[in-house]
């Protein structure tokens, strides 16, 4: 039984079904849209497409996510389910311009 329990812990549980899909674009070191509304209480699949030639790092302490997106590359983040509220994020490599917020409502 001990071994079965150990082996079971090696594998993740089944994925949530029906994640809501959203896209953020990075262009000229800005997020578009800069404010993204998502449903509260739902798991979100967030695709980030970097149209700039240089890498950017999506960074959000509120969402507990950090992810580097290579130049002309893309990355996928999974966030939530979120309580209603505002969750700021930024591009760590271009903080002066790359600012945004996810609004869960």
């Amino acid at each position, binding site marked *: 039984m001990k*071994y079965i329990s*150990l082996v079971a*812990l*090696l*594998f*993740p*549980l*089944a*994925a*949530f079904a029906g994640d809501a899909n959203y896209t953020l674009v990075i262009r000229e070191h800005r997020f578009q849209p800069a404010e993204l509304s998502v449903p509260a209480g739902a*798991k979100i699949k967030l695709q980030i497409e970097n149209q700039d030639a240089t*890498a950017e790092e999506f960074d959000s*302490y509120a969402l*507990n*996510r*950090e992810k*580097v997106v290579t130049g002309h590359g893309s*990355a*996928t*983040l*999974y*966030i*939530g389910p979120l*309580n209603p509220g505002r969750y700021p994020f930024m591009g*760590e*490599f271009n903080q002066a311009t790359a600012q945004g917020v996810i609004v869960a409502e």
Partner: protein
Amino acid sequence: MKYRKFAGMLCLAAMLAGKAYAGPADYVYTPNVEYGEREIDFKGGAYRQPNGGYAQGESIGFGYGATEHWFTELYLKQENIANQVANVFEWENKFQLTETGEYPLDVGFVTELESPLSNNTPWELRVGPLLQTEFGKLQLNGNLLFERAFGTADENGVPYTTNFSYQWQAKYRWQPAFEFGMQGFGDMGKWDAWNRQADQVHRLGPAIFGKLPLGNRQVIQYNTAWLFGASSAAPNHTFRLQVEYEF
């Protein structure tokens, strides 16, 4: 007198064997990998065994996020356990196996190979899955680790076995510079035949964590814990600290 000397040797042998899976500078692995991240990493810790023996360890390492799913780090480590000093070279590789948040459990895997730089320690390999989940601002980690020293027996004739240990932490993400929670470490003995309860080593205690931005993409990260012995074989008090400079 002979009996006391023999008992002392047994204790020393147990401590040296124990060192293989309960280093004073041990830390809690997390499964996340950050591509392109470079870090200089310092770890240290100390404890006093129930029999009075003192143990201390420090390491310094350089790590790099080589891909989105692979982080590699090289360490130089020194441990002083009951006046037996061991210097080792360590190569740690961490693999992120699932995207953060994609499943209810985030899963990673760690391999850690220790090569002795002094002649009183064996080669050692530690492997195991790294698990993480979050509930709002609460982040939970749990790791299952299997460790083996190469060779048939140590210098005292104690045969090497594959041992099982665990680590866990609960962290409340209050604010970036100061987060708080608990950490725990346990050594169960042989992986398929755990020690009797009195010989298992369980430690747990309060921990704090934080991240201090220095600007220009440079960050200091820290976590430290004061662990209390939760079993008779465990040290009464353990202090451990990890500081990383990321750039």
